[in-house]
């Protein structure tokens, strides 16, 4: 299997690098069937999680017996554009925080509930519901000078070679975007639809799961869930995708 994956990667790399003039969403690389699935809210399985998230949003929880709606009210108003602004700077810890991290923080500190697990159903559903409120809005990373260091760290990680295959993210997603890795098209790695429903996973997954997926493919040690590295890489990618439209919950093959 390792050798096969290696070979596939080598073949993919041998394809000519197509210079991209414009940024393209992963959506543009998909077949018409998958595109139709994403566009139809009744066929998009990610919408099931959004519905679940809506229920969670309105359900009182934790020792405080408060729901998300008790503070934030109507999510269609209060959460509009929020997902487009993360990762942001957390004033309290003075470090970058992603949307899932913020939800965990709210759950623990304000609702006094147990911390939802990363990649767990509760957190994914809530992230999908909050993300859905920003659909079709442009990604607008905060103009916060304090985030510069985080973004620089993310940029360095993006072009750093890692793992036994000694690849960097940029080698595939910049140099060979538009080419193929085996049969799969290589997209430009814009995080504009997370959390998204991946057909291969048969479930909703976060951007960090996608990172781990890529990194284990590169035979590198994946970033731990919620780690500074993962958030830094996300911050860099969101900056790189600034202005592109959010598609949450997207569908990808």
């Amino acid at each position, binding site marked *: 299997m390792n050798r096969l994956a290696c070979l596939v990667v080598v073949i993919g790399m041998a394809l000519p690098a197509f210079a991209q003039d414009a940024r393209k969403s992963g959506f543009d690389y998909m077949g018409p069937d998958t595109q139709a699935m994403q566009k139809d809210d*009744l*066929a998009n*399985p990610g*919408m*099931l999680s959004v*519905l679940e998230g809506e229920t969670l949003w309105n359900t009182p929880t934790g020792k405080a017996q408060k729901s998300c709606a008790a503070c934030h009210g109507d999510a269609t108003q209060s959460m509009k554009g929020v997902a487009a602004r993360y990762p942001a700077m957390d004033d309290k810890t003075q470090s970058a925080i992603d949307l899932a991290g913020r939800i965990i923080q709210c759950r623990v500190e304000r609702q006094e509930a147990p911390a939802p697990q990363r990649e767990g159903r509760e957190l994914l559903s809530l992230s999908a519901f909050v993300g859905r409120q920003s659909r079709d809005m442009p990604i607008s990373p905060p103009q916060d000078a304090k985030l510069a260091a985080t973004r620089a760290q993310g940029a360095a990680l993006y072009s750093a070679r890692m793992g036994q295959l000694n690849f960097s993210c940029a080698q595939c997603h910049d140099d060979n975007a538009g080419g193929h890795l085996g049969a799969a098209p290589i997209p430009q790695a814009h995080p504009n639809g997370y959390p998204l429903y991946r057909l291969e996973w*048969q479930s909703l997954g976060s951007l960090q799961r996608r990172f781990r997926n890529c990194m284990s493919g590169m035979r590198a040690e994946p970033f731990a869930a919620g780690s500074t590295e993962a958030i830094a890489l996300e911050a860099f990618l969101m900056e790189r995708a600034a202005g592109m439209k959010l598609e949450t919950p997207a569908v990808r093959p």
Partner: protein
Amino acid sequence: MARALINVPAKSKRGEIIEIKTLMSHPMETGFRPGMDGQLIPRDIIEKFVCTYNGEVVFSAQLHPAITANPFISFTTIATESGTLVFSWTDNKGETQVQTASIQVE
């Protein structure tokens, strides 16, 4: 089980062919996959889907382990009269989830 998304046209003309779409949230665990501990994850699939229109079965399907998680089933029927469509999904443990939708036929 869990939640489902159903799309039935709210209104239609008598004799018109209508498209019905259903999306059911379900893991459809095959029973062939080992989990993190190396043990097989027990099978958990929907085995039967039935749609009745005013009591009459208009569509039914048997589902098998190779079918995707969150199965999407779409079919057509003829709008005959106003009434209720009842959708039921039965899993391999014998649990059934039922949802209804109403249709207005002019």
